[in-house]
């Protein structure tokens, strides 16, 4: 590996930083701070020795306030930046942030793109995990931002979440575990009920934070620093949690994201699931009915038996479409369970 290292380092740094998109608001804020007589980095720089010397003057106190008054300070270990986007053959599309679509060009808030956030797909009263790569508001590092985004509506209208954005949130990725400490307002949605669905909703957090951290570690969830909280009055958070593969929906589409545009020429629909022997059937409908249908055989995803990654190649003319993917299910009768599928609307330019 003698000279793989520079390349590895370069790639790791870019994958960590390039998904981060600063707000477009910076120049306005800078100008306002200048107009307000703010002294910027200069001032803070000079204050450091004063503070360090514990000079208790008014100026130093001001400096301390400046340095500590910010939001849920991640004691998060510096973001271990894996983008789990890497294994997807098509880069996850940037999903439009609500502010970008509704309020024109100026984005007031910085965002991180390509962040995996799990949501629920419901079939009757049953809920299972589905994944979206989303553009999420930056809140601390990537793992913290991803957990916070659990409380935002999923992009796909077929998905839902019972999480609310916690007013206080701290995600600490340690060597042997991940500790998530949040405020109880995260569990304020009464629609979660207090039954088995609450366990699946907790798994949403486990899958999301481990994916965003790029580490499959046990997750300890604390509420106001305490262990043992009953999430939504149901599932008790009294022990470290691991990913439970049985909670995944039997299929989800990773790309295109809901509503996303695909290029002319060849389009790829990619995703994962538990189709029998890796088989998934699909159909694509346009404005005047079905335009394509067939089946695809996936390749095994990682070390996980019975879990597959699929890639459906299509050649569609410009227009608006809906794709539906259904995992093969040979079971019948009571063993069959609900029929799961995933659908995405997309356009071809």
């Amino acid at each position, binding site marked *: 590996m003698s000279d793989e*290292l520079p390349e590895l380092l370069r790639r*790791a*740094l870019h994958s960590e930083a390039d998904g981060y998109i*600063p707000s477009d608001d910076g120049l306005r804020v800078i100008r306002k701070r200048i107009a307000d007589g703010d002294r910027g*980095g200069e001032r803070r720089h000079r204050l450091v020795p004063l503070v360090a010397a514990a000079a208790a003057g008014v100026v130093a106190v001001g400096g301390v306030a400046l340095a500590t008054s910010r939001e849920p300070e991640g004691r998060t270990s510096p973001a271990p930046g894996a983008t789990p986007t890497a294994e997807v053959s098509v880069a996850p599309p940037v999903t439009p942030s609500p502010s970008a679509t509704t309020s024109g060009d100026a984005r007031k808030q910085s965002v991180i793109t390509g962040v995996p956030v799990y949501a629920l797909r419901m079939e009757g009263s049953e809920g299972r995990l589905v994944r979206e790569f989303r553009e999420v508001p*930056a809140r601390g590092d990537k793992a913290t*931002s991803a957990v916070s985004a659990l409380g935002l509506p999923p992009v796909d209208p077929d998905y839902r979440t019972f999480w609310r954005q916690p007013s206080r949130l701290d995600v600490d990725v340690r060597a042997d575990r991940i500790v998530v400490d949040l405020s109880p307002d995260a569990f304020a949605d009464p629609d979660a009920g207090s039954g088995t669905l609450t366990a699946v909703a907790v798994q949403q957090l486990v899958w999301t934070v481990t994916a965003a951290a*790029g580490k499959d570690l046990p997750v300890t969830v604390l509420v106001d620093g305490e262990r043992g909280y009953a999430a939504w009055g149901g599932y008790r958070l009294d022990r470290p949690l691991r990913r439970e593969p049985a909670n995944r929906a039997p299929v989800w589409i990773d790309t295109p994201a809901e509503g996303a545009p695909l290029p002319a020429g060849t389009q790829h629909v990619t995703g994962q699931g538990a189709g029998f022997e890796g088989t998934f059937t699909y159909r694509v409908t346009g404005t005047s009915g079905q335009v394509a249908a067939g089946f695809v055989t996936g390749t095994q995803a990682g070390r996980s038996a019975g879990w597959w990654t699929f890639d459906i190649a299509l050649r569609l003319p410009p227009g608006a479409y809906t794709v539906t993917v259904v995992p093969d299910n040979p079971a019948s009768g009571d063993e069959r369970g609900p029929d799961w599928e995933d659908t995405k609307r997309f356009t071809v330019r």
Partner: protein
Amino acid sequence: MTGPAGTGYAVPDDPAAWDADIAVTALYSAHWRPLVRLAVLLTGDASVAEEIVQDAFVALYRRWTSLSDPRAALAYVRATVVNGSRSRVRHRVVEERHRPAPAPEPAGPEEVALRAAEDALVLDALRGLPRRQQEVLVLRYYADLSEAEIAAAIGVSRGSVKRHASRGMAALRERLGAMASLGGAR
């Protein structure tokens, strides 16, 4: 004064002809994003990165008339960002200095996340290096700066930059080798 960068007035090509306002506007439109990303890497915290870079621009404005060479404006802003990032992580570093080595690659059921896991290992190993070495490696391998530019950004000699770079890379190799994650275990 409130329009986005690039609207309003034309920016003269030569920095020597800039006033403080133009300097801030011109440098902002060309360098805001990369500088914020640099601060994200240097602090590991996206929520403070923008403020650190804003600080640097405000400081540039205040210092504009005393800047000996206007062409060095970008170098000045960059150095302020590196410095601001350093003071921001200082208190955190103390508690994390002796973090144990990261766990081995996740046996994640989710992905063939080799690449992602590898990136995470490399970044973890990087975070474990002494601060100067981290800064030099980030400026070199992310920002693609020359030795002279790195020296200016972190306020050390070019010789020190060389030394930090080679020690940093050697230490990274050692840490990653110890985790047997590169080359071998895939």
